[in-house]
């Protein structure tokens, strides 16, 4: 096992500061600033085209920012003395010569990083690829390629992990493994930044989330904070589910009070008015209720509310 650097709070801190990327007239990332701390899993969320991948690639000095900076542990990626020992990155699943075996691919990277060749077998075992390590990558399933990308990120036993949509192509068992794995890394005091469009997955995995839309920061905080904030900034309380044999009558009554109503047979999805008020309306109208449930707002609803109206692709 390799020794990793001292796990200080600042050692793995990612600081994005006024980061901007313009492609001609199009601004992909627009004056974006946020901080990712170590010892927790940070989810990086945004609709497609929000600028997540561009931001991650600027962090890793693969894409040149038009303005602003991104540092990891206080320095730019390109200035890290041993980048693979400090930061492991999983970007796309196809970043390997398909005619190579997984083992050869990793050994090329180890040579470039000045790390011992034996690390290849260690990370292949860690990511469950030992049995296919000498097979051509061309024969790997998408999930295996994704695991190989994760294996490559682990070569230098880094303090910081940056993953761009790593769950793509993983089967449920693989996703479970990834979740446990990333949690254990963060418990060791390391930094984990993971971008995803799978919001439910993020709700299970992330301690904190950074949400961007149209290249700008929309919200950052713990999942509870984000949901609260969305509740306050959105159109009143979360949706309420009502089941009644007189759905039409209740729906009309609620709409007259300014609520938004979606009707599906006996079931109404109501937003813009809270559960006690709905109960009151029903009582006054003499409408019989079979169910009245205030649904807990989840990250997905918060996300949709926060990114609403912010066009993904400009």
């Amino acid at each position: 096992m390799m020794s990793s650097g001292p796990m200080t709070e600042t050692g793995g801190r990612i600081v994005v500061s006024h980061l901007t990327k313009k492609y001609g007239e199009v601004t992909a990332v627009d004056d974006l600033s946020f901080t990712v701390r170590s010892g927790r899993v940070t989810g990086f969320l945004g609709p497609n085209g929000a600028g997540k991948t561009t931001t991650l690639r600027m962090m890793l000095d693969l894409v040149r920012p038009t303005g602003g900076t991104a540092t990891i542990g206080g320095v730019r990626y390109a200035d890290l003395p041993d980048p693979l020992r400090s930061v492991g990155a999983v970007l796309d699943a196809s970043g390997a010569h398909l005619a190579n075996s997984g083992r050869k691919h990793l050994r090329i990277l180890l040579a470039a990083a000045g790390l011992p060749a034996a690390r290849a077998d260690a990370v292949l075992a860690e990511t469950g690829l030992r049995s296919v390590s000498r097979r051509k990558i061309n024969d790997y399933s998408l999930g295996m390629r994704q695991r190989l990308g994760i294996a490559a990120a682990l070569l230098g036993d880094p303090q910081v992990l940056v993953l761009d949509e790593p769950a793509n192509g993983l089967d449920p068992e693989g996703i479970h493994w990834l979740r446990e794995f990333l949690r254990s890394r963060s418990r060791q005091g390391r930094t984990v930044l993971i971008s995803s469009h799978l919001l439910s997955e993020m709700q299970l995995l992330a301690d904190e989330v950074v949400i961007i839309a149209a290249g700008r920061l929309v919200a950052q905080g713990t999942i509870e904070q984000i949901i609260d904030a969305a509740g306050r900034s959105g159109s009143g309380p979360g949706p309420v589910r009502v089941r009644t044999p007189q759905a039409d009558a209740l729906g009309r009554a609620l709409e007259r009070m300014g609520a938004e109503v979606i009707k599906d047979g006996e079931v109404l999805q109501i937003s813009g008015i809270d559960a006690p008020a709905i109960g009151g309306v029903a009582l006054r109208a003499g409408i019989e209720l079979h169910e009245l449930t205030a649904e807990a707002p989840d990250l997905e609803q918060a996300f949709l509310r926060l990114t609403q109206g912010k066009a993904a692709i400009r």
Partner: protein
Amino acid sequence: MNRTVRSEIRKIRSTQGWWLTGLAILTLTAFALLSHVVIYHFGDLASSDPALRSPAALAVMAGTLYTSGQFLGVLLVMLFAAGLITNEYAHHTITSTFLATPRRSQVVMAKLAVAGLLGLAVGLLTSAIGIGAGVAFLHSEGLPSRLGEWNVAGSVLLGLAAYVVWAVLGVGLGALLRRKTATIVTGALIYLVGSAVLTAVFELIHQHLIRQDWILTARVIVPSIASQVMTTPGGRVFDQAPSQWVGACVLIGYGLIAIVTGTFVVRRQDIT
């Protein structure tokens, strides 16, 4: 830097391109040698024309034998060297390469070093084959090797230089174009067709605009013509050709331009 070079060597060894290219170069060399031997044995040396047996003609013959297969060998080395860069983009391995070595100029320098060394190795191997077989042939014809003569030995050395410089040019071309097919086509056109087309341009200028011989000599600024001038043993590619060393200087100049522009372009590119 050593790490980056070692990683580059590993990349080359891990795929099949290197030995396929090597096999092609060896086959070409053997074929060129054989055809030279046949032409000299049944042609020049069987002729009654004394000019074909003059010391100058025999020196050209020796130089030609010793550098057999070089014309197409150099082309293959250049295209292989370009592949050191274009393959990384074609297979998207450039991302992991730059993650491991974010100082991109270091990656380009490592590729240049490896390409130059490969060019030198191929040059040494083909020269060894050419000299071995050539000396044996000349001996069987009762002729001396002339390896001690400067213009013969110089041809062999400049031939080695051609392998190295074109390998460097290949890396530069790959860095500028990135796309595999575009690079192969452009490289082959520059090397094979460029001289013929541009010779015609220079001749038109000479005929219609500037009727001075230096215009024809100036053809040497075309890389492929510079290369021919540099590697044509003792003889002259065309009447107004400058000396072999002028060709060498021009070609090395292009090599340096390729290194500088290639590094500049690779450093600025966004890897998306």
